[in-house]
């Protein structure tokens, strides 16, 4: 899958504009001014207005630059992100060791297509080192 770079950037700018819009919407319902000083809603409202205006201006810049940018590889980063999200989803029920081992193994063996045995050995070693650092050394109650 290959997408035009500027469409993604346009989406990024519009995402920031939408977040700004959300902040305007919610901040407008909060108290804005109390005595001489701003209240809880004032600065979020200003930030929302600023973010929307700046993000729309950035979107305008992207549009005016045209669609001449080079196409970029999307497939691999999306795969990596999918594996990351699957790992986070698995943490509560599969636990840290299994989830992190699966993350590493999937990235090495499936995404990078490295030999399965090497992938399994490196994944196990890395998971073990992380367990030792966080659970044994730092005493973190890992899931």
């Amino acid at each position, binding site marked *: 899958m290959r997408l035009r770079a500027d469409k993604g950037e346009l989406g990024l700018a519009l995402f920031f504009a939408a977040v700004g819009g959300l902040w305007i919407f919610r901040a407008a319902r909060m108290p804005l001014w109390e005595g001489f000083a701003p209240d809880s809603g004032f600065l979020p409202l200003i930030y929302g207005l600023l*973010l929307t205006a700046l993000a729309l201006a950035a979107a305008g810049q992207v549009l005016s630059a045209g669609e001449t940018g080079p196409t970029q590889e999307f497939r691999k980063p999306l795969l990596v992100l999918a594996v990351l999200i699957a790992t*986070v989803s698995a943490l509560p029920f599969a636990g840290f060791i299994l989830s992190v081992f699966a993350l590493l193994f999937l990235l090495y063996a499936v995404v990078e297509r490295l030999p399965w045995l090497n992938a399994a050995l490196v994944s196990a070693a890395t998971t073990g080192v992380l367990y030792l650092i966080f659970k044994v050394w730092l005493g973190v109650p*890992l899931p």
Partner: protein
Amino acid sequence: MNELNSLLGGFAAALTFKHLGMCFLGVLMGQVVGVLPGIGPAAAIALLLPLTFGTDPTSAIILFAGIYYGSQYGGTLTSVLVSVPGESSTVMTSIDGYQMAVQGRAGPALGIAAIGSFIAGTLGTLGLTLLAPALARAALAFGPPEYFALVVLGLTALAAVGSSVMKGLVAGVAGLLMGTIGIDPQNGIARFDFGRPWLLDGIEFIVLTVALFGVGEVVASCVLAVVRPVADVKHVLPTRADWRASRLPILRGTGIGFLVGVLPAAGATIASFLAYIVEKKVAKDPSRFGKGAIEGVAGPESANNAAAAGAMVPMLSLGVPGSGTTAIILGALIMFGIRPGPELFSKNADLVWAVIASMYIGNVILLLLNLPLAGVFARLLKIPYRWLYPPILALCIAGVYSQSNSLQDCWLLAGFGVLGWLMKRYDWSMAPMILGLVLGPLFETALRQSLTLSHGSGAIFITRPLSATLLAFAALAVTSPLWTRIFFRAKTV
């Protein structure tokens, strides 16, 4: 004299076994991340934040500072040996450095870069020793309006360092906006928690930093698959002729680098660019540049190292970071409960002077590491990135979870990781977002206090000379692309 005594005290602290170890570890890691593809000093510090949480702040900041200036040395190796700059500040080095490597002179190129970096780093730290306390003393008169203006300057200056001021400002405002999530410290009202109790504490600095600089950078870099042929490194010590040709470029580069580094909206990349231009201008035979002139390595390399020390001046004395990495170090100070700004030199003098002293020591360690071990570090370039990034992602998850044992933080990591990937991919500066998040509460408090002082009049920000000056600098930073265009147009007419 006061500074000398404080510096001696700093050396006493920095030379303890623990701090010396942290300094060594920091510069070594900086050197390594400077060499490795797809991970920069900002990402390395971000990944280490959870591990240093709860430790002695002085040790942690010594470690982070070491990574910061150590990476300037490491970035040179990739520029010279494979013509791929490890850091943007070593782009200019790759022009003549790589040509020297092609001609079989990679060793002298790396040698003069290490010696120049050492001289510039040491002189730059000397400049930091002399200038930063004086600047902090002058800034002690700061009140709420000046703190407000300082945050504006910090954000705009950092936005101006990136590829686009507009995109940098979007990131900065988005960071400020995220800083409003949670309980309003002034009156206890819950803001933007969207009915989720775990958002009442706000978004943690570590979570956002690891997500943007760890996950975002890793995912953006995972497409790096090519391993380039690496030139051999032999005879690192430069000849007498090399040294004669490089002496003055090193000194000029140091001066340019330090001055540019101190300016909030500039940075090491601009410093190395200017140093290269200056060397080409003053050269008897400018046609040698681009074909392996050693001055083209010595000048920019000295400049970027002096700039790294220079950038610590506004960071330590005013709390205004000059680069993405110093923005994260600033965030780390806040994480440790230390308020950055002019009071740092009086309230946390032990920490500041130990960090400054460690920079002198770190530069010596880097010189000792680089001259005999340049060939060893060069071998790191042969490690394919595909072996490196999966453990980094696993470390991101473990680090973020360990910060408050929260699975929700892991979800935030994934969400902001996607955002970081897109920002990195499209060259949107991420550091202003971090700075906005960490300085947001200070900004809001300063605004409220200022307006209470002035009975609601915004004129307080422009009628007080210091505040007005800082805001004027902020306006200069925002309009810097315009001034740059006018300057270059005037030069070409």
